């Protein structure tokens, strides 16, 4: 693992001047991910905020080769790029070692791109898929996805007189990807730069497919002041709403255990997407959400062989 000083001496491979919102989380994730390897990287990206904000023709923020194809096919597209690499290498037309990263938001990964992702992982392409998970369709204006947490107010799961927001719990995609039996699966947060960088490094180093979900606070969608992005990314972890762990060849390992598990409301209260939950009539929802976090945390600790 490189030190912060060493990382700070490396070239940042995504340039400033892109058009992401002030306080957006994904540029931090890109920056940390691209610092994680010394090999040349080819990046693919699903349609979404990341693609839209970094590649408005004739400009590009990417200093590495980059491909955007469509919304639901980041994994399939990069699997084609990786297949071309294998073929051209075998035919002696390329001699470099190249790493492949496919990015997708939660909509492009959990929902519309799920089949493409599952297929690419099953086929065993040597690539790392990173989902920047901001928990809703933010690029189209904050619609609920299967990654949206229960109780969140989105434009298609609005809170109202008859609704407390999204009714369903979020899909646990990380576990779904573990079930694919791929060599490396992890969850990370940009608040823990060393955790994220080292996981990207491991994901790229393994032979075959690797998958990561990275939580990405979204100023507009989560509705909080733009200087609170990293703070929220940290609170998600410290409340055990978003545990940091990795599964290497099926072996679970907790990579960060909060010294003190904070109440979920510490994370929720800072976001206006959950404001309605703090009304008296929705108190029971808050209690249910806390109970679900506790249950999932206990399950994870058991899998990781950790004491509660």
């Amino acid at each position, binding site marked *: 693992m490189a030190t912060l000083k060493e990382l700070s001496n490396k070239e940042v491979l995504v340039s400033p001047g892109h058009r992401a919102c002030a306080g957006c989380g994904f540029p931090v994730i890109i920056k940390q991910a691209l610092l994680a390897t010394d090999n040349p990287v080819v990046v693919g990206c699903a349609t979404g905020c990341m693609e839209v904000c970094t590649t408005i023709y004739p400009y590009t923020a990417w200093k590495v080769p980059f491909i955007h194809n*469509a919304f639901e096919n980041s994994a399939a597209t990069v699997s084609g*790029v990786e297949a071309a690499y294998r073929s*051209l290498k075998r*035919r002696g037309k390329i001699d470099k070692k190249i790493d492949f990263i496919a990015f997708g938001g939660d909509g492009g990964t959990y929902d519309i791109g799920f089949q493409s992702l599952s297929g690419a992982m099953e086929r065993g392409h040597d690539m790392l898929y990173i989902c920047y998970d901001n928990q809703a369709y933010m690029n189209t204006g904050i619609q609920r996805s299967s990654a949206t947490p229960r109780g969140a107010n989105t434009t298609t799961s609005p809170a109202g007189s008859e609704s407390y927001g999204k009714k369903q719990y979020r899909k646990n995609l990380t576990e779904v990807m573990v079930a694919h039996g791929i060599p490396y699966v992890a969850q990370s947060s940009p608040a823990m730069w060393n955790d994220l960088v080292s996981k990207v490094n491991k994901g790229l180093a393994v032979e075959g497919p690797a998958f990561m979900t990275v939580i990405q606070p979204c100023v507009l969608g989560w509705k909080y002041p733009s200087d609170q992005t990293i703070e929220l990314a940290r609170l998600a972890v410290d409340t055990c709403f978003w545990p940091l762990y990795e599964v290497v060849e099926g072996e679970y390992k907790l990579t960060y255990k909060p010294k003190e598990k904070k109440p979920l409301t510490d994370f929720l209260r800072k976001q206006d997407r959950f404001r309605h939950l703090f009304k008296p009539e929705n108190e029971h929802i808050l209690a249910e959400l806390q109970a679900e976090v506790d249950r999932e945390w206990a399950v994870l600790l058991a899998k990781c062989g950790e004491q509660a």
Partner: protein
Amino acid sequence: MSIRVAKTGNEAVAEGMRQINPDVVAAYPITPQTEIVQIFSSFVANGKVDTEFVTVESEHSAMSATVGAASAGARAMTATSANGLALMWEIVYIAASMRLPIVMPVVNRALSGPINIHCDHSDTMGARDSGWIQIFSENAQEAYDNLLQAVRIAENKNVLLPVMVTMDGFIISHAMEVMHLLEDEKVKQWVGEYVPENPLLDVDNPVTVGPLDLYDWNMEHKRQQAEAMVQAKPVILEVARNYAKLSGREYGLFEEYMLDDAEIAIVALGSTAGTAKEVVKALRADGVKAGLLKVRVFRPFPACEIARALQGKKAVAVMDRSDSFNAVSGPVFAEVRSAMYGIENAPAIVDYIYGIGGRDVTMDHIRSVYDDLAKIAKTGQVERTLTYLGIRE
């Protein structure tokens, strides 16, 4: 010397793909294309090719991976039919706009619904405005020859467009015929080494592929794409001339069969043209001046050339193996009649929608069309523009 073999259309196309030995093939099985994928898999398994074969989980991913591979700098191919093409749809357009020289055999099958596995042209006709070059084949020989020519057309620097090579499902894909293959070495030399422009895998010269392209530049890029289709026409003819030197088989934008002095003529695509040729021969023996125009290249559409070839005929029937549900005609008729607008001595033109969902088209059917044309030629009267051939009404 070429090699004389008995092959089905699917076998012929798979052989062509083996000889091309693409860098990457990403494909998914669908009737009636499945055999192409199966046969190609066996070539991979037995070391007959060293292609990277990506067994994707859907046609959407087949085209997505093919786009990824082609952008990376590989010579990349896929193949499909009907619903598979429909599932690819979004990426079919993207492949063309990215100017990727992908070659894709499409085994024509009726597009659902109702679900059906047999031949009509509703799949590729729906994709006629997707920006792909479309080349139709009358038989297995043509499917093979068109496939080999497609590589050179697609990769020509003045073109850089993807190409669909079509053949009629089952009628061509599963029927065995005697045909000629070129020797492996000749094909290798014919397709040559692929040198991509600005490939993703040139990591020392990073490019951004598929950026967001708003009103500033989008129209210029679409205009360039349209121009590439214009440029494709002379390239298709040039490639055909060179291919004739190699194979002895000649191709144009379309084929004129006893058309020169014909008074009545049919315009058809695909295997039906073969049936029509037999009818023309029989009619000629009876002294009827019948002819045929077989469209080979539907995109780019050879409008002026077709208009010149049909000018002065008395009556023309367009055979449409798909409907466009516009309450007027099938798609080929719309294009052919539009091509004739404003020219002198334009013939009367009528449309026949036929062979939908694999409905058999016999010589008797075709003969009835020529009978109708003879009547129109004699009376100058068109009773109806559109006929559904052989339908129970």
